[in-house]
């Protein structure tokens, strides 16, 4: 099945709106995986972005789906203790909802392109 990769998370409202309307910043963008919490974010080079869908805004952050170009490289930044004490994270979901940074969306890239164009148009209106 056709598929694209995406990062699903949250951006400050202004940044999310700018991205959704097709205005990409010069530097990398950092998409938070949890709202209001920077424990884990995904750093994306704008040239790797195929498009952005904008969701609702809450408390200054907007939900976003950032679709990635094929072969995009993203950096996942998780705040935690460095491993110099050989600290191994305990994946206890009660404490820390571990989430993989990239999700696969089973949809043809052309459909995603159309969706993104439509969303960008709406963001500009």
């Amino acid at each position: 099945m056709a598929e694209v990769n995406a990062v699903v998370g949250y951006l400050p409202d202004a940044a999310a709106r700018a991205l959704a309307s097709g205005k990409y910043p010069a530097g990398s963008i950092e998409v938070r995986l949890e709202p209001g919490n920077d424990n884990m974010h995904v750093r994306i080079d704008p040239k790797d972005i195929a498009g952005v869908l904008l969701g609702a805004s809450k408390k200054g952050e907007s939900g976003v789906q950032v679709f990635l170009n094929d072969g995009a490289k993203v950096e996942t930044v998780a705040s935690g203790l460095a491993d110099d004490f050989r600290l191994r994270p305990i994946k206890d979901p009660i404490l820390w909802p571990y989430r993989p940074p990239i999700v696969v969306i089973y949809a043809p890239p052309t459909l995603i392109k159309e969706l993104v164009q439509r969303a960008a148009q709406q963001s500009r209106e």
Partner: protein
Amino acid sequence: MRVLLTHPPLNASREVTPPLGLCTLGSWLRHQGHEVRIIDLDLEIKGRPDGRDIYLRLLERAVADFSPAAVGITSMYNNSLQAERMARAVKACDPSIVTIGGGSHFGALGPQALRRIPELDFAIEGEGEQAFSALLAALESGAPISQVPRLHYRVNGQLSANPSAGLLNLAELPQMWSTLDGSIDLGRYAETVLEGSARRTIYIEAGRGCPFACTFCATAPFWERRYRVKPVGRIVDEMRFLYEQFGYDGFMLVHDLLTVDKQFINDFSDAMMESRLPVEWMANHRTDINLHGLLPKMKTAGCWAMFFGVESASPRLQKEMHKGLKREGVVSTIRGLSDLGIASTCSFVMGFPDETSEELSSTIRMGAELKLIGAGMIQFHRLRTWPPAPLSRTMLPSKFDLDSLRLEYPFLDVPHDDVAAIEKDPEFFAGYFAPYTQAGTFAQLADVELFFTQAVAAAPLTIAVLGRVMGASLIDSFYAVVSHRGAITREDVEADTTSMLPIWMLLRPFLEEWAAGHPALESWERELVRGVMAYEEHRLRFVNGADVTADEGIAALGDHWSAFFSNVDIAAVFDAMQTDQPLTSALVQDSAVVLVNHEMNSYRAYTTDVSHLAGLANHPFLLEAAAN
């Protein structure tokens, strides 16, 4: 016609949301030109200790104020006795008022309701809108009521019933909340939302009908198993209205199984994204409906949670109850939602007639394991057979179950007279007569429901590990411990609900005795259980801000972190449980666990070698955590 719609007291909780069925019916009737007022006695008595004594007086006052020609009364099984008294009270006020019953209970057992309640003139079976308005039209015009669909009534003292005339096209319903203006005061409901709630939550109807045929389910046959949804734009408009007027920002989309139609979910998600409403929503879903391609969009569109009826871990019971879920599908769905940050609630039903204690053991274990892969909440419920569920028609041997009545009754204690009234009528109050089951006695199942709901919430790793090491004997050995030390009680659990820590302190001695006394456990398995229990206690104490300085096993402490000795490798235990690997004696090895509070309510845990403990206090990251 002037119509009063009313709803009996429902439960003892503080938050109240508008009665959806009555609101939909009320807006439909107003749309047809009737004058409608809704009196929600659940709302009226909220916070009043004398609620049980005054709800009928409040109804009488409303009848006197409004002078209705007809009163529609709904009930939800647990408050049908109150609904019955309300019908009597209305007739006592004015015998000329027409009384009409409907909703889950009267709507499923119309003839029985009329037989029980002489003061009830009519009962409407199933979906109420079209039948109710047709009845009012007939009463106004003097047309024969034999043409009113779905109606149960008396003719010369004999019961008579009219057939259905099909289901409503939900697009014909008017915009509910604005149509109801003046019929109900939504602001009073908004005032009951607790301060500091993560979301201001309200139920709204997205549609009706589930096409599946689970044998225990009463709602699917009630809506005739036909999937229908309201138009997407109508739902979004309702959400916008409630957000803009009353600040509601969390919406429970009421529908038996909303996700059956993927195109609808796709369109709804698009509409929510386009609306830019800063709100979230949740819906019912099934683990064998594949939404993989849609879930990211749903998340971005504000989907915060999904509810699943998983029911049982037993493939045999899955087949027998016509549910047909497979464990792999359940696990992959819950994991997929967790990966996206969408919360999930998984509900299990226990006590099917030929369910064995071994099958129940595997169900409890599955619940705990789902919690370990990210399910937000696990619920265990005893089987109830309310009509029109297919199981309710099988006349299973059953017995009155007072505990399940107590659990659901609208008031905190059930008067003897009410118990006697319900016990006397097993046909009408079928749901309070539990079928006999091989899985345990009624009292045992009540203990299982209470204990494991609490234990899986407080200490899922402990229960999952116990489930693994005890296997099929989990429940029988639980019963053995209960038989000689007693179970925890609902009063114990409800004594302090401020956090899970008091619950844990209740559970711990029980769990210790249970693990220590199980004859089949090897010594390393006992050590493993001891280790995971110690971890869960430390975690609970740390997260709940308890003073941990004197805790057993504490090895080092700092601002915002603590480290303790452990006899097991906790990280490896989680890995094994989450990846379905076997538990082995190699997991029992000395280590240390470090718990850190990075920021407000953001906790992490790490396993480390004991030899590293000495240097922890100067670690820059822990110092940074302290600075936060």
